[in-house]
């Protein structure tokens, strides 16, 4: 974030946002006096420095289900579900997007422009548009660092929008 004035930071810095737990979807950010933020910036995923660090706690604790046991690395984004179109067992699709080593580094920077002096910021993620990126009859299991994970992560980053 060089060249930018950071008005406020969320602490702790790494958060697991879980659709199942409302509390995980809410953040209170205290802005420095005299500052009015014009954009919200976050990394969708865990940065490579943190990935290379040892066992971490709170939202980064491996018990949260976002760490690959068989090969080091965090899962940046997880989406699972079912649809009759999907030929997998139990019609289940699983998108576990991760990878932090080039060329499969899938972490994405997301920038959302804010309205001047906005206090209540609601960010929406367009799940339907994400699922529309693939044909679930063909692509329904992405569970390791790969080009597809990077492609889907890039697209996912663009699906965070400011809700009115």
């Amino acid at each position: 974030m060089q060249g930018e004035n950071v008005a406020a930071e969320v602490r702790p810095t790494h958060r697991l946002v879980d659709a199942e737990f409302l509390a995980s979807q809410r953040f209170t950010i205290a802005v420095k006096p005299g500052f009015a933020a014009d954009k919200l910036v976050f990394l969708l995923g865990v940065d490579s420095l943190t990935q290379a660090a040892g066992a971490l706690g709170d939202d980064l604790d491996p018990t949260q289900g976002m760490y690959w046991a068989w090969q080091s690395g965090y899962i940046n984004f997880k989406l699972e579900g079912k649809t009759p179109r999907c030929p997998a067992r139990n019609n289940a699709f699983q998108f576990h997007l991760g990878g932090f080593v080039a060329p499969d580094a899938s972490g994405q920077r997301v920038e959302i422009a804010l309205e001047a002096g906005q206090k209540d910021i609601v960010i929406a993620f367009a799940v339907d548009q994400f699922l529309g990126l693939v044909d679930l009859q063909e692509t329904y299991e992405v569970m390791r660092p790969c080009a597809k994970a990077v492609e889907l992560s890039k697209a996912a980053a663009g699906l965070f929008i400011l809700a009115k």
Partner: protein
Amino acid sequence: MNWKKSSLVLLAFAALLCCGTVAPLMERPAYFPTPIYDFKSNPLTPEKVELGRMLFYDPVLSLDNTISCASCHSPYNAFSHTDHDLSHGIGDAIGTRNAPALFNLAWQPRFMWDGAIHHLDMQALAPISHPKEMGEDVGHVVEKLQAKAPYRHLFWAAFGDSVVTGQHVLQSLSQFQLTLVSCHSKYDSVRVRQAQFTAQETKGYALFKKNCNSCHREPLFSTYAFANNGLPVDTTLFDFGRMKVTQSPQDSLLFKIPSLRNLAFTFPYMHDGRFKKLNQVLNHYTSGITHSPSLSRELKTPIVLSTTDKTDLIAFLLTLSDKAFVFDPKHQHPKK
């Protein structure tokens, strides 16, 4: 809570004064390179090491509470798995590789035969979750530990928090494993000029330096890099090693170079335990190399060893056996 902490500190300080110098938790010989492990993120304490030891020997880490880390990493075998070519886990499920020996871990950049794990703290997650090893889920391990009062006390003593977390389980396991340092073999005594090699061992050492040192570099006896040492792929396993992790064809049949320390205790040899005897290993290097594009550069020209050479070389390799390490009570099963 401040008064409790300060009185504990005073007691510890007084104890140190009475007992004289305290042995370091982890030895660091002067001739070893700088450790890679970031101790700042997880500084060693006796309580965390002890908690790690309890966890290492506790089958509670497995789904059916039958398999502990020590089941495959046995202290009497320099923390390797002998007598089996492929290690086995819960319900006698047989895996695809031979469990490697555990020692000098602070000097290793990557873990597992294919280097899938890049930090010691995270390694335990792999066997804990593998269906043919411990078959568990680390979240469930945490729940099981939380339900046991003795563990709640141990976690409180180590971390000042009786709430068990995945992070604390992993950090304490790391700490115990970091204390497993092997540096008291005959080779080490010779290195610090407290012993001398026999004539045969001296010949073997010269052969070692000529033929093996580039990959099995002293004093760790490995560069811990990845290499294809000419083993033909086992067609019942089709294990291509590092390629599985990097997806790069150049990494086909590359495996992590193991240390040659403690070979007397760690048979069978290679990632799939295919060689039971050191003679078989040496015969592989002199006449069994299978050529492929990724074959290690050092092995492209054959290694030449006469029968006497092989005997001398094995004599030298046996000087790497560290009985003090293998029989150290601090590394064994906790008595309580």
